[in-house]
């Protein structure tokens, strides 16, 4: 890493940054010198990094169905990584350094700050990045929608040119029940649920659409109305392709249009027959399930368990409440504060989805952190960067599961607190009170209307540090699972857990 070049702001992406954005860029971005042959990011990894090439060249290679395709070479002045940074999705290609290069690396929190409107108009950064995304990545991204399986790359590119990008707040209705379906949507990031209300006024979830899934194929069929209301259940970014675009783009290629309609027909028939996709199975189960089971499904969707990657599940019929899981969690953390709380969502009276990090597909904590204190590693796990955390509590408020808590900040800035290790002696009968030690209490975040630190620059007063399950970072075990004497605790996908319980 070295100092940022003086001609930085002459770059066409950075030419109209606001003073605040410039200040952020200078403090957060960094230069990286990569030797030839180095792999900068691999296809399928979560990096979220956006890079601008200042010297040298980087090649993008995508493996698909056994064939490696060169997507392009990025030379001085070019940039790459916008797809991953924009949609928080795994990289679509492997980026390998062809000629020794100097890159300006912009991490996701800073990228989000730069990819914003300046005043009321789009910044150059936003315009150019969106344009390059549309040009380079959208056609690849569109291929994740099953309906496009049979279309060629050039056709997808044409469709992509007329696609619209839509950003929605949580709770925004994308489409209302029974309205005519007039567009196909691809979820770029976030999540959308499809629900309808029954005669008792209860909401029944028909399906949910996570990142990289599509809905609205029915706009290409004769079943034109939406089966339910489509609502964003998290801040969501969608790609919208109006029905008219299909007709105009593929007008000259009737075969492709017919194939598209046939595929869409098949998908809609499948969906309406409640037989093919997991979401349809869930919808069918929801419709058939007795009230109690349906309630569980609603709770899980309401609690947004569907967003979770893997949940820590406690089987209460096996759990002897010995507290070994919490105690072992304490023993692996230097600050002696447990990351695990056994309170959580109870499912069917037998399982508890413990309050432990789900490493969400859509990590709202990370999206809400303006300090770069939360990052996603290549495996998709969410990690906290201790030094960057200012204790603004935005992450703990935005976490749908409430698994992030706050601990007092260290006495000496930059140093992790070290507490005496005799906390477990407190649990001894009669004499435990003499071993209260210096273990700090966990600060439960207070609900505040305003967060004065949000959007502030570095140097904000540190109020505390956010902590959550780190999957026992760097250790050869996950302490709670490893130390349970009855195998009552383990990691499971909440959706699969629900399906297994139903069956």
């Amino acid at each position, binding site marked *: 890493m070295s100092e940022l070049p003086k001609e930085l702001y002459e770059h066409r992406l950075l030419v109209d940054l606001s003073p605040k954005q410039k200040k952020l860029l200078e403090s957060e971005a960094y230069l990286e010198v990569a030797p030839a042959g180095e*792999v900068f990011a*691999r*296809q*399928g*990894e979560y990096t979220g990094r956006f890079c601008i090439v200042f010297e040298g060249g980087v090649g993008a290679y995508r*493996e*698909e*169905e*056994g*064939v490696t395709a060169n997507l392009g070479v990025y030379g001085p002045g070019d940039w790459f990584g916008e797809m991953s940074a924009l949609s928080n999705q795994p990289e679509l290609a*492997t980026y390998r350094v062809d000629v020794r290069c100097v890159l300006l690396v912009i991490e996701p929190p800073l990228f989000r700050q730069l990819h914003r409107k300046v005043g009321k108009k789009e910044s150059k950064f936003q315009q150019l990045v969106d344009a390059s995304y549309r040009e380079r990545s959208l056609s690849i991204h569109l291929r994740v929608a099953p309906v496009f399986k049979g279309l060629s790359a050039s056709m997808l590119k044409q469709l992509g040119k007329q696609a619209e990008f839509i950003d929605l707040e949580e709770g925004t209705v994308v489409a209302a029940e029974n309205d005519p379906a007039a567009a196909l949507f691809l979820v770029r990031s976030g999540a959308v649920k499809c629900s309808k209300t029954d005669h008792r006024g209860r909401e029944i979830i028909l399906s949910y659409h996570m990142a990289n899934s599509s809905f609205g194929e029915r706009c290409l069929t004769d079943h034109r109305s939406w089966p339910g209301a489509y609502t964003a259940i998290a801040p969501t970014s969608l790609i919208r392709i109006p029905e008219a675009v299909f007709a105009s783009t593929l007008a000259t290629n009737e075969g492709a249009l017919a194939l598209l309609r046939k595929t869409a027909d098949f998908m809609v028939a499948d969906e309406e027959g409640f037989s093919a996709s997991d979401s349809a199975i869930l919808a069918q189960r929801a419709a058939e399930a007795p009230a109690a089971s349906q309630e569980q499904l609603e709770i899980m969707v309401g609690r947004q368990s569907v967003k979770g990657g893997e949940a820590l599940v406690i089987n*209460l*019929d*096996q*759990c*002897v*409440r*010995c507290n*070994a899981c919490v*105690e*072992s969690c304490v*023993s*692996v953390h230097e600050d002696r504060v447990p990351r695990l*709380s*056994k*309170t959580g969502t*109870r499912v069917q*009276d*037998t399982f*508890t989805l413990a309050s432990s990090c789900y490493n969400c597909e859509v990590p709202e904590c990370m999206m809400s952190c303006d300090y770069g204190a939360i990052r996603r*590693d*290549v*495996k998709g796990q969410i*990690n906290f960067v201790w030094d960057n955390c200012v204790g603004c509590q935005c992450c703990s408020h935005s976490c749908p599961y409430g698994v992030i808590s706050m601990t007092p900040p260290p006495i000496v800035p930059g140093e992790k607190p070290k507490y005496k*290790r005799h906390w*477990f002696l407190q649990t001894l009968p009669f004499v435990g009170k003499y071993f209260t030690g210096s273990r700090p209490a966990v600060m439960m975040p207070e609900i505040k209307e305003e967060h004065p630190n949000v959007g502030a620059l570095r140097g904000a007063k540190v109020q505390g540090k956010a902590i959550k399950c780190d999957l*026992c*970072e*760097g*250790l*050869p*075990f*996950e302490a709670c*699972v*490893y*130390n*349970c*004497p*009855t*195998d*009552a605790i383990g990691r499971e996908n909440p959706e699969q857990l629900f399906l297994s319980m139903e069956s």
Partner: protein
Amino acid sequence: MNTELFKSRHAFVAGLLLLGFAVWFFSTGDWESARSFRFGSGWTALVLFAMVLAYVLRKNVHKAGISPEFKMRVPLAKLEKAESRLSGLRVLISSGKLTDPAEIMERGKAMLKQEGVQRVIKLRLLENAEGQQILRAVPTDPLGRMARWMHAHLYYGLAAGGMVWLHAGGMPQSSMGYALAGLTLVVVLSGIGGIFLWAVMPRILTKAERDLSVEKAHALLDSLDRKVALAYESVDASTRAVCEDVDKSGENFTQRIEAARKAAPEDAEARRQAEDLMALLGQRRQVRGEWKALMRIKQRMHVWRVVHLPAAVLLSVVILIHVVSVLWY
């Protein structure tokens, strides 16, 4: 009933061992002169007791944070680099360029070794529903899961009890023998009771926790304590005294709420505050009652430990004395 506690290969090993010694015992005829049997069964019993104690040692060493696995910690950057290289391998697998499981594992293991993380993560090659190969990196769990140690503790403990009985020839010959056999019996029986309680009681507690779990009751009590403390601050001294009296006496709240009203007969605001405080105290008493009921079930689940733990400590001491005295004389 939680039958998971009974599913263990250690049960088979322990049963086989005990059976072998039982056959040997009944085939020796004259136990008095069968020195080799007594020698063999004694040392085997000692090894079994050591294995039983190993569980206790492993549990507490880990709790104290001095377990050897803690030294295996690797920096996150190393893990990320290894994961990044594994991603490359996964791309090859998903694109169909690499299909041989042996080659996949060999390449993966080599990557982990080169990055120096092979002691922290290991590889598993799984197949998904569509039959595609999935390469997963999972923790190595170097000492094995505690549940396996628990199984070993249970079954080698039971086997050790039987071995002591065989070692004593079915009938203790001395006061030391009686002490050993008696304590072993107490430890084994309390342990069996423990297995039964651990198998049965979690479900009972789970049912009782349907409305409020122990953990939630803890959190709720903490929150109510804070609210009560705040509410006490907002009332005057005489109202506080009445409320404290009600809280301590544990009398019926509907009867005593009148007393609270009388404490502030004129001032409507003071009366409202007193009533709020009374309501909070009532809630706290109710939650505390439910919490105590749950705790009673929880205590019943662990009551066997009251006998098992002291008897086990005593047994360890007696075994030590027995071994030292036998070797000495």
